[in-house]
């Protein structure tokens, strides 16, 4: 057994606290160590070259690098081992940076601790066994969950690369929140106009859309997922419906339209908006007279293709995919819990999305500016920023898009209604983005009055006008503004059903509730579940431009995976000793990856681990009451050797 030990300075990160020379000298004295060296940056090419040369000239078969966390560079050195014909698992890292030099200041004690960590790593590497990576097939198709701009962009990018894409959308049309907007900053282009070419994706030969559908269950693993999709009953036979719209024109039942922010009505059988994709309407069974009263049937009578089916049932379809992109977007914060703003009590206090619908040409007023209380044309407006954002009482994070969409709406009001008074009550204006600061400046020049003060309260006046009160922090005056309408820039939240999807996909969420990326900077579209990627606002608030970039990143991540027909996985997984296991199932209960099945063997039960699903977390090993469960690379004798080494004194 020829072991080489390499101590990294990491510039001054390690060498500034730990005496790397001494650690190197100490390492050379350890059992089995034939060479010990230190170098300024072990991960650099010259650093790796030192290891390569020693493997060649000193016949090293095992290597220890004392440097940073294995999550940072374990792969770097395993690749060196592999490249030199060695086994990558006959390698150990001693983390003398994160667990030593970065957390200690006393140089002598930190150096002593480095001795211990190196001694433990050498003890472990002596016991390591060569392991072979697992090779699995890959299904070269992808699932995209969510048909907003993120999901559409990701679907198109994958489809254009030649992969089949399954796009699942919970509403009856793709388009997402972007389809609700009036104009978009900083170019003021019409969202539907720029979205339409992307919505044409339903004609793409590689894309299958399941609209009005939800993910029911996901089984399998990276490269090999099996997805159950619930196609909810639309009460409309898709193959027959030609989208003529006669049914919704003739339907006698009117219902508040959630899509229009409850500011207008829709029918009980309806499409979301004129350019809906697919154009097939959905019958809302909670409000349809056939379901509530058992009579009507107008839609069925007028349908020229006999596409209405009151008996239609939900349908479960199964799709096999290699990668999954989660693009479920966001929900708008309900501001009624901030009682002093009076949302829900004062009719003329609206949310940002409601205002988008109110000013949208296909919205409830067909774009005419009318206030909800009396239909009068409002002339004085107050926009209130950071509602439910940047507030420890609601959500601490900045929702990032509100500054710019408020600036956009405020400017549009001044453009289209020059007589209007427009106030923006803000905490800070955050206009970072290409062309955004310039856009903000133009809005000032057009006469939008920016008041630097977070609105304290809104007082409802008898004529349904509103009094906004705050401090103008620049002059130190407490000020009040009487306006006809208030628009609250509400926070962006995770969607209501994101927790359900999180559990189905076994991905994580951050403290803010949005899905968590694998690394905030270097793996922003990956999740910690291999093969599952996130795109757009599902990961955190971002505007359309950033969402498209993120979606393209997720599509790229997914295509890196599904462009291969096979992939290899780390072999560090659990296995059960059949001669000891008694099939009690405790391991299955604690396995959060669904990797363990209890199966019959020769008339008794035993635990069987799917080594592809297994993440090597070790929960089952702890739960096993008679020592049948073992994890490769972390066997008892391997761990014990480290513990024994830890107890020794240098």
């Amino acid at each position, binding site marked *: 057994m020829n072991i080489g030990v390499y101590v990294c300075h990491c510039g001054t990160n390690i060498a500034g606290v730990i005496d790397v020379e001494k650690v190197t000298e100490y390492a050379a004295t350890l059992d089995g160590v034939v060479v010990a060296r230190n170098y300024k940056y072990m991960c650099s090419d010259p650093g790796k070259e030192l290891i390569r040369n020693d493997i060649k000239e000193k016949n090293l078969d095992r290597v220890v690098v004392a440097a940073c966390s294995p999550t940072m560079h374990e792969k770097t050195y395993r690749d060196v081992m592999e490249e030199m014909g060695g086994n990558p698992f006959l390698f150990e890292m001693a983390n003398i940076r994160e667990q030593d030099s970065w957390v200690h200041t006393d140089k002598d004690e930190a150096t002593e601790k480095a001795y211990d960590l190196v001694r433990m790593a050498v003890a472990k590497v002596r016991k390591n066994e060569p392991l072979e990576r697992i090779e699995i097939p890959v299904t070269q198709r992808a699932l995209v969950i969510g048909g907003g701009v993120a999901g559409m962009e990701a679907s198109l990018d994958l489809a254009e690369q030649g992969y089949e894409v399954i796009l699942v959308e919970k509403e009856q049309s793709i388009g997402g929140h972007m389809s609700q907007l009036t104009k978009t900053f900083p170019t003021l282009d019409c969202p539907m106009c720029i979205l339409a070419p992307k919505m044409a994706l339903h004609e793409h030969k590689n894309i299958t859309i399941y609209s009005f559908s939800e993910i029911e269950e996901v089984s399998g693993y990276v490269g090999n997922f099996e997805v159950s999709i619930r196609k909810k009953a639309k009460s409309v036979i898709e193959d027959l419906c030609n989208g003529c719209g006669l049914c919704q024109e003739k339907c006698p039942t009117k219902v508040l339209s959630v899509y229009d922010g409850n500011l207008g009505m829709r029918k009980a059988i309806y499409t979301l908006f004129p350019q809906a994709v697919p154009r097939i309407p959905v019958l809302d069974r909670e409000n349809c007279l056939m379901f509530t009263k058992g009579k009507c049937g107008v839609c069925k009578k007028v349908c020229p293709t006999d596409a209405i089916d009151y008996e239609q049932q939900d349908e479960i379809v199964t799709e096999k995919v290699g990668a999954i992109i989660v693009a479920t977007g966001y929900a708008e914060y309900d501001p009624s819990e901030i009682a002093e703003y009076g949302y829900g009590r004062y009719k003329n206090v609206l949310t940002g999305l409601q205002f988008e619908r109110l000013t949208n040409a296909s919205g409830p007023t067909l774009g005419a500016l009318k206030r909800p209380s009396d239909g009068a044309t409002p002339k004085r407006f107050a926009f209130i920023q950071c509602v439910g954002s940047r507030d420890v009482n609601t959500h601490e994070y900045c929702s990032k898009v509100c500054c710019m969409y408020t600036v956009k709406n405020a400017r549009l009001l001044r453009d289209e209604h020059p007589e209007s008074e427009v106030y923006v009550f803000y*905490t800070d204006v955050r206009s970072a983005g290409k062309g955004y600061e310039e856009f903000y400046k133009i809005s000032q020049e057009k006469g939008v009055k920016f008041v630097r*003060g977070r609105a*304290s309260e809104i007082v409802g006046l008898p004529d349904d006008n509103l009094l906004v*009160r*705050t401090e103008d*922090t620049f002059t130190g005056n*407490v000020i009040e503004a009487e306006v006809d309408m208030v628009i609250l820039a509400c926070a962006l939240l995770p969607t209501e059903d994101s927790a359900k999807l999180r559990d189905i996909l076994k991905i994580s969420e951050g403290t803010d509730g949005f899905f968590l990326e694998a690394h905030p900077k270097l793996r922003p579209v990956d999740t910690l579940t291999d093969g599952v990627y996130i795109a757009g606002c599902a990961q955190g608030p971002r505007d359309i431009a950033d969402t498209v970039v993120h979606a393209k990143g997720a599509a790229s991540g997914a295509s890196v995976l599904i462009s291969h027909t096979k992939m290899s996985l780390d072999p560090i997984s659990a296995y059960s000793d059949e001669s000891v296991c008694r099939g009690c199932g405790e391991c299955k209960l604690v396995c959060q990856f669904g990797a363990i099945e209890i199966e019959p063997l020769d008339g008794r039960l035993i635990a069987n681990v799917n080594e592809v699903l297994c993440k090597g977390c070790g929960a089952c090993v702890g739960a096993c009451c008679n020592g049948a469960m073992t994890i490769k690379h972390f066997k008892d004798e391997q761990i014990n050797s480290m513990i024994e080494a830890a107890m020794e004194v240098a």
Partner: protein
Amino acid sequence: MHMPVIKSVIRLNDLDIHFVDEVIKTGSEVFGEDVPKTIMACMQCGRCSGSCPSGRRTAFRTRTIFREVMIGFREKVLSSDELWYCTTCYTCQERCPRGVKTTEIIRILRNIAAKEGYMAKSHKMAAGYVFKTGHAVAINEEIQNVREELGLSRLPPTTHSHPEALAKLQDILRRTHFDELVGFDWETMELKEV
């Protein structure tokens, strides 16, 4: 002819940059450190001042006081009359988006100001009643009637019902040097100077 208002440049070096630390340290004695140190997160959004019922009528600006504490205008803050205009209604503290314990911090500032000899006259007068009656607001006929209607004794179980306890209270006030703080004269049983 109007005289121009002269405002000179203030050198940050001349201010007491440790004042905020003093506020946190002093406040910790009463509230524990978690309460006063919230001041460090103030982002000057003005929601406190705009929510302030006193600020709508007076020159009291909660936000400005916090800014002055943060940057070190020690004497200005402690000697200001406005510091005593807060009614401790806690609206600003309820609404602060950064979780600053605004009202508690105003109370801490008053404690420091009082030790430095800056206590508002009205507060000293209220303290004088505590010396004389054991209450800042002594009971009156009207309140006694209300108590009776509610099925309570006409007098609460305080120095009002137990005049003999007043001497003990006065002893506490003397031993804690509260008399010196408010300038109470035991001879005349009045404030020394009002």
